[in-house]
């Protein structure tokens, strides 16, 4: 079954919120239909035709590139102007194979309130698509309330080789900087933008593995502030023969937002004092 979703139809569906199931079924066809649906939604959104729908998303679109087999969480915040009860977040079927949402239900949300859910992108390893695109929607059957569409577009690209190091694509700053963790699509524990700088700055260095260990530990310091992470970072630094003038390049990228700076400061301020000798002893 193929259906062309026009702006008019989207408005009819979204505005009336009665034919959602039909839309979802209608969108269950091939990739071109998905693309068309996304394009329609984007166009309608750009024209401001959807702005009056009661639930909005922040960010209002998710677009990024990733390597095959990627994993990435993206938190999104939805704000409603109308009270919601047991609203479900659903996806155009094409997206359903690549993303889940936690939680997938918003039990209750008063008018004017916001809540954050996490979109967990994890396409199957066998997924060979070059583009994963679709729409996320929130639908409250009881109040017949529906959200503005959240267009999602993920380009699947091969890993880029920088100085002999395979690196993930540059993450979109607005998504990457919205959280402490940021983007790490290859799940190696190093934020993608940090990893790219690491490769471009030190990819050809014989110490590249040490830099990677250091960057992994620093990311954990930022996220957890754990003594273990600090010990790993100090060990990589003091045992690995790194220089602060070099690691500062990575640290400055790592702490590129006030929130990250504040979190890092809080974590490291509370850390126990470190004995230089003890760290050096641990090198052996």
């Amino acid at each position, binding site marked *: 079954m193929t259906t062309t979703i026009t702006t008019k139809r989207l408005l009819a569906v979204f505005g009336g919120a009665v034919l959602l199931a039909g839309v979802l079924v209608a969108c269950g066809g091939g990739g071109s239909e998905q693309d068309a649906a996304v394009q329609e939604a984007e166009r309608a959104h750009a024209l401001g035709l959807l702005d009056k729908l009661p639930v909005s998303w922040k960010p209002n679109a998710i677009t990024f590139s990733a390597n095959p087999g990627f994993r990435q969480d993206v938190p999104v915040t939805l704000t409603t102007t109308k009270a919601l009860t047991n609203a479900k977040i659903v996806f155009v079927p094409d997206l359903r194979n690549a993303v889940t949402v936690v939680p997938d239900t918003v039990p209750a949300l008063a008018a004017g309130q916001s809540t954050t859910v996490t979109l967990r992108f994890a396409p199957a390893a066998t997924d060979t698509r070059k583009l994963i695109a679709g729409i996320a929607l929130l639908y409250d059957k009881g109040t017949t309330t529906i959200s503005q569409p959240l267009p999602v577009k993920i380009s699947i690209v091969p890993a880029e080789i920088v100085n002999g190091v395979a690196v993930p694509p540059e993450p979109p700053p607005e998504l990457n900087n919205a959280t402490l963790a940021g983007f790490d699509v290859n799940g190696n524990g190093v934020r993608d933008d940090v990893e790219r700088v690491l490769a471009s700055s030190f990819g050809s260095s014989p110490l590249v593995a040490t830099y990677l260990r250091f960057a992994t530990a620093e990311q954990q310091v930022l996220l957890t502030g754990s003594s273990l992470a600090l010990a790993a970072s*100090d060990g990589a630094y003091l045992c690995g023969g790194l220089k602060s003038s070099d690691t500062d390049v990575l640290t*400055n990228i790592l702490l*590129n937002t006030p929130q990250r700076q504040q979190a890092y400061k809080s974590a*490291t301020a*509370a850390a126990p*004092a470190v004995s*230089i000798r003890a760290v050096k002893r641990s090198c052996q």
Partner: protein
Amino acid sequence: MIGRKLLRLSVAVTIVLASLPELAAATQVIFVNGIQNFTRQQALDSATEIQRVLDLSANHSTTKRDFEVLLRYNPDGFTPDSLPAGCNLPCQGVQLKQDYVELFIQKVAEEHFYTNFPNILAPFDAITTIDRSAAAAVAAYIDKLPGDNSLEPDDATSKQLAVKLAPNAVVVKGLVADIKAAGAAIVVAHSQGNLLANLAYAQVAAEMGDQARKIVRVVNVANTTRFAVSGLNITHANDGALFATASRFALETLPSQGNNWTRTTPYTQATSGCGTNSSCNLVLAPPTFKGASTSGFLDHEFVATYLSTYDLPEDPTARLSVPLTAGKTRFVDRFEDFVYAAARSLETANVPPLNPVLFDNLGDRQFVGLNYDTNGTLFSISVTGEQLGLVRNPILGNKLQGKAAIAFSMPAVGGADLKSIELPIYIQGGTNQVTLSIRRDINGLPDTSSVLATDTIIGTLKTVNAFFTDQTFTTTTINYNPGAVPLLPNTRYWIEATALDTTVAIWPYGRTSASALVAYSSGGAPYATGDPPTAIRIVVTPK
């Protein structure tokens, strides 16, 4: 005679061997970085360099000590609300402003407790009384922002600022915990780290009172504060981050720079030309060395300046009482000297009260009390203390302050009349005059209302060619009339020295703040070659 010298030499060798590093517990040195060491790795570099310098102990090879250096990382507190596009750290404009905010708030806090802090100072070379209530008043500012300044116009802003500066309080509390865990530690603070170290010391002093001097010494490097807790301040006059005479970015003139940050504090209100909403200069401890030029930014960096091999000229007017290694004049030499002075002082403070068994003069370096009764028999008076010297107190307008004291006590039975006290004495200065008082102990302190005797000692102007190697100090004997100074059994007495405020004097080879040395104990290894003149003889007539 030769045999006796050989005996002394063999004992001395034994003592040196007994004090080899591997046999002694390492002294903990806790480094607190300043704002310039922004990243943890920069701070690790600084701590590693301290460890390297102290492991080498190039200028103390014969009296080498073992130090373990710890880093108490100070990540700075204040973080701006937003960073301009493309302005990741270090983004000089943003970084500088956040540094200024943090320093300004902490210096304003200091102006709120500036009258309390002098009452908790614990110079490394003197025994002073630590006022616990004053310490508590200072320590209250660990968690309290000062208020009444242009950065905190209202509660909301104040609360935001409090959140942003919270890491500072965490660092201070961590440092307090570090000091306590170490049992005895030397805190080396650089730049803004000094402001935090002072607060940490205040907390320790509030909890422990006079006992605080048994567990902590602070070495101030590039001191941003107006105090030097232990009198161990290494700051040179050309430090451009601190002094207006060195650069236009100086901390001193921060209130009148750019945003014109103003404040109303007890200090501004008490100071002519400041008053309310004032942008008058901040007060810093004066530099302790003449200006030097280094490769460090603003001649302020910890490693590139203060641990560098650039020459650091002495400033005779500073009158430091730290023994400086002769012929070694670099920044790194001075740093080593200061840490060693702190370590010796810390060790001395932890020497338990002596008993007569230790009263030999052959090399244990403890305070020597040759105590005889009038029949020439050794009498069991125990003597404690480090020195009876006078130090220049900058807080009192550089007047001389004779808080140092030697305590002696009688045995549990009997009692005696004090007959005489014999001391080696060195006084150099305008009046060459020191007053010696005998006071009875009340609750562990010399009771000012119980002066039993007061005597004036006129010193002899002398030239001392090497530190403590000149043992020709004039021996001065003060005699007491029978019954004039009765000594009760089981009671402690203090010998306290004071000098006229007008006394202006210079320590041997013009480098220290002490103007008079009445008697001295190094309490450990000698500062330099040769034995210190440490004999004191107390003669009593037993009852």
